């Protein structure tokens, strides 16, 4: 058990292990065995991914990126869930899981190509067991279910061998919960008892639509009708997200089937850098959520309870600065793709007809630029 835990849990329907004020609380179903050093590592994650996000927004403003989907406010949900994964587990993100990517060891620069327009993803999902960003809402939940089917067929669940048993973590948003694909993924997972955990970041908004447009009941309840458990967690509480996801992933690895986790959080920024929130939501709502900031509460805990002093925070700040510089200069240095590369990788084996189009195109481009 952690070193400083309060006895009472404030809100039974929302799993919380760290209050906005930075107090540790206990939840009977989700004991979390964590040291203060481990908590400080999570703090570092939170700060660093927020800095990646800040830099990316700035790069978009400077015209270096075409678009950016900010994770501001959702750091705890992403770091908590991301850190619950084991290396050989597999994660299927949407387009906003920069924090999860971070936990998987993906260089932030790898994520930028899509937003800069230099590639369409362009990395191997198996390198860090982190799938390509998926923009078509909900599609990736089926990929996760299918991957989990593969895991089962590989005999990589329920063996008791921690190096072998594998879980799959599928991310999606509150808006996505309405898509047929997501519900079909629930069908497959439930009927097939698949080792997949569905992690819904309910950030209260799908672009301009409040979550009430999608559902009049809490989203975590959706799971039970498909035959598995649903749980709502304080999505701004990194400890709770870690504990709940860890348990669900363990469950999955042990062949005990899927779980739906609804991380109750908030999208502090506009939907993307293209969006204008003034048209649809009140600044006061944002202010309320500021009080629940996912980083502040950890900082408060570390300072007031665990006794971390400024040297620690300064060190993290240094790291953040270095990371920011890496993102900034790395982004600018991202190579433009060569025109003819649009013909690469359409197929594994290029057809003759495409080869012809390619050579016409190459001739044409060199002619024009000549």
């Amino acid at each position, binding site marked *: 058990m952690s070193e400083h835990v309060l006895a009472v849990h404030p809100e039974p329907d929302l799993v919380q292990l760290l209050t906005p004020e930075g107090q540790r609380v206990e939840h009977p179903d989700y004991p979390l065995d964590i040291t203060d050093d481990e908590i400080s590592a999570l703090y570092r994650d939170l700060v660093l991914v927020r800095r990646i996000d800040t830099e990316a927004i700035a790069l978009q403003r400077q015209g270096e990126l*075409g678009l950016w989907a900010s994770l501001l406010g959702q750091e705890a949900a992403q770091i908590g869930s991301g850190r619950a994964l084991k290396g050989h587990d597999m994660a299927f993100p949407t387009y906003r899981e920069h924090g999860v990517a971070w936990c998987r060891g993906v260089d932030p620069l790898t994520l930028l190509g899509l937003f800069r327009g*230099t590639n369409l993803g362009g990395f191997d999902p198996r390198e860090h067991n982190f799938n390509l960003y998926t923009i078509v*809402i909900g599609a990736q939940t089926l990929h996760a279910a299918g991957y989990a089917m593969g895991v089962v067929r590989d005999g990589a669940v329920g063996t008791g061998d921690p190096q072998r048993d594998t879980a799959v973590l599928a991310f999606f948003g509150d808006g996505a919960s*309405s898509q*047929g694909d997501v519900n079909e993924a629930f069908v497959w997972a439930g009927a097939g008892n698949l080792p997949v955990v569905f992690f819904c970041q309910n950030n209260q908004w799908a672009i301009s639509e409040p979550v009430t*447009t999608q559902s009049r009941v809490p989203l975590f309840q959706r799971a039970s009708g498909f035959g598995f458990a649903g749980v709502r967690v304080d999505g701004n509480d990194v400890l709770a997200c870690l504990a709940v996801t860890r348990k669900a992933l363990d469950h999955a690895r042990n062949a005990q089937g899927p779980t739906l986790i609804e991380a109750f959080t908030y999208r502090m920024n506009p939907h993307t850098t293209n*969006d204008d929130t003034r048209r649809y939501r009140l600044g006061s709502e944002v202010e309320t959520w500021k009080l629940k900031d996912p980083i502040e509460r950890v900082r408060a805990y570390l300072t007031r309870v665990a006794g971390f002093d400024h040297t620690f925070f300064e060190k993290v700040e240094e790291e953040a600065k270095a990371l920011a510089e890496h993102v900034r200069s790395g982004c600018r240095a991202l190579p*433009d793709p060569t025109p003819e590369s649009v013909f690469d990788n359409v197929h594994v084996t290029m057809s003759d007809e495409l080869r012809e*189009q390619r050579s016409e195109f190459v001739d044409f481009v060199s002619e024009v630029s000549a």
Partner: protein
Amino acid sequence: MSAPAATTNNWTMAKALNEGMRKSMELDPKVVIMGEDVGKLGGVFRITDGLQKDFGEDRVIDTPLAESAIIGTAVGLAIRGYRPVCEIQFDGFVFPGFDQIVSQVAKFHNRSAGLVKMPITIRIPSGGGIGAVEHHSESVETYFAHTAGLKVVACSTPSDAYWMIQEAIADDDPVIFIEPKRLYHAARADIEAAPTPLYEARIVRPGQHVTVAGYGPTMSTLLESAKAAAEDGIELEVIDLRSVSPLDMPTVVESVRRTGRLIVVHEAPQSFGVGAEIAARVTEQAFYSLEAPVLRVTGYDTPYPPSRLEHEWLPNLDRVLDAVDKIMEY
């Protein structure tokens, strides 16, 4: 349908579409607009801006996030006597609704032996050139043109946008309405006093050497190309097809009979695209008039490229002029 007030000239296409829909909603209380973010936000492109405020949440409906349901519920609304206008947020997101479009919307009138109408308009901001991420720059018209029961049109000017959206909504048949998103705010123009019939092509620039036909997003490129070619003494006759299905072949064929040469331009991939159909029909209908085969300047047979490469990939001035040179060599 009705003409805009005299003060309404000099509109962007975005404004023209908005005003067109407003007119349709005023004239017919059965017209409802539905889609993702079409309400308070006015759509991600603001095409429905202000409509929910003025017509209420019952007529401008922010739906949950699922395209199959947006289309499927439109079918039910149509059976109940409504005239739904569905907004698909971006071209690439029409596919989850594809089944409802091709198996239900397109066929319902036929299946009911003509007893039920499907006056559904499906608006799709389409095409590339805006530096967007994947799935946001697709050209999906061919899929629908190949589907019997649907009509497919594309506007290319504010005036057409204003009139065509009203005509599409007033049409008792389902219409796929292609909106070239990169032209939404491109240029302001005056609104003509009366519409050109929805399914007619229009010669937007006469010329005697080569006919060049396109629609929607590529029209500005074609007009530029015509100007450039004219400087070299080649007069392009530029046709805005306006309707992809049905195709106004008489206008195209008549032109090709005069010029003997045709280039078709579109952003969608070349193979099995709109250009192929026009080439096949023109060759059949004007075989002895053709001095050269119909040439196509189109997107390539690849996924839409990352945005840094889209301008090379898309049909552009250079590619059109290159095709003009090529076709003149025959």
